[in-house]
């Protein structure tokens, strides 16, 4: 430790972490996890914030590449690009593995 994640990986993941670092956006991503493209109306249903706020949050997610909008007829629908979550997930997994190996070394050190 720290056999840190390469900074390139972090640079790639940072916007994703940032985009996900908000309750409303995390909720939108969770709703889109079903894989079906959803309309603003569907995404706003039961939400504590206005449609305008939801739209703003979707644009933040879009900037991070996490969601994309597609026009279907007169309606804009939004879908998740799950591959964009990979850098963030890989970073967390790598750090998790590093902690596992650090704890393993602590155990070996104490128990020897």
């Amino acid at each position, binding site marked *: *430790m*720290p*056999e*840190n*994640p*390469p*900074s390139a*990986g*972090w640079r790639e*993941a*940072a*916007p994703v*972490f*940032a985009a*996900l*670092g*908000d*309750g*409303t956006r*995390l*909720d939108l*991503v*969770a709703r889109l*996890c*079903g*894989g079906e493209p959803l309309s603003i109306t569907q995404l706003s249903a039961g939400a504590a914030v206005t449609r305008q706020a939801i739209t703003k949050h979707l644009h933040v997610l879009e900037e991070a590449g996490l969601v994309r909008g597609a026009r279907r007829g007169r309606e804009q629908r939004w879908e*998740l690009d*799950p591959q964009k*979550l*990979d850098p*963030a*997930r890989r*970073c*967390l997994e790598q*750090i*998790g593995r590093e*902690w*596992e190996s*650090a*704890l*393993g*070394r*602590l*155990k*070996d*050190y*104490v*128990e020897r």
Partner: protein
Amino acid sequence: MTSSRSSTIEKQILIRAPRHRVWQALTNLEEFARWFQVRASGAFAPGVRLDMVSTHPLGNGAAFYIEVDTIQPETLFSWRWHPGSKPAGANYDAEPYTTVEFRLHDAEGGTLVTVTEWGFDRLSLERRAKAFADNTKGWEIQMAALGDYAGKSA
């Protein structure tokens, strides 16, 4: 507890040794340096900043520092640091940090060590100086859902 708690890594290990022994290996800097694989001098104390150099075979001698947060004897040891490698001499001070926390519990046959690291969701929010909305949803639940989805779509 802050909202940054929401993106969390947690790992546990059972160590077959009494709690005071594990605590010592964790918080005596000389012992810590051996298993954590760093070179460092000084002593852990709340509020202290310690400069370290990685001696991990893959660490490439990376220099970094930690800022000790809490030391509750035989119970809790925590610090903050900056994830990701940085060029030597880089100024981290404006960068967001994550918090690392070690908790010890008595367990059958030894001591249970739980390490938690959180704050990954602030990584560039702070940089952008945006307000951080409270997120009580729980990153792990969401990540599990995302993992399921990614698994299905793979």
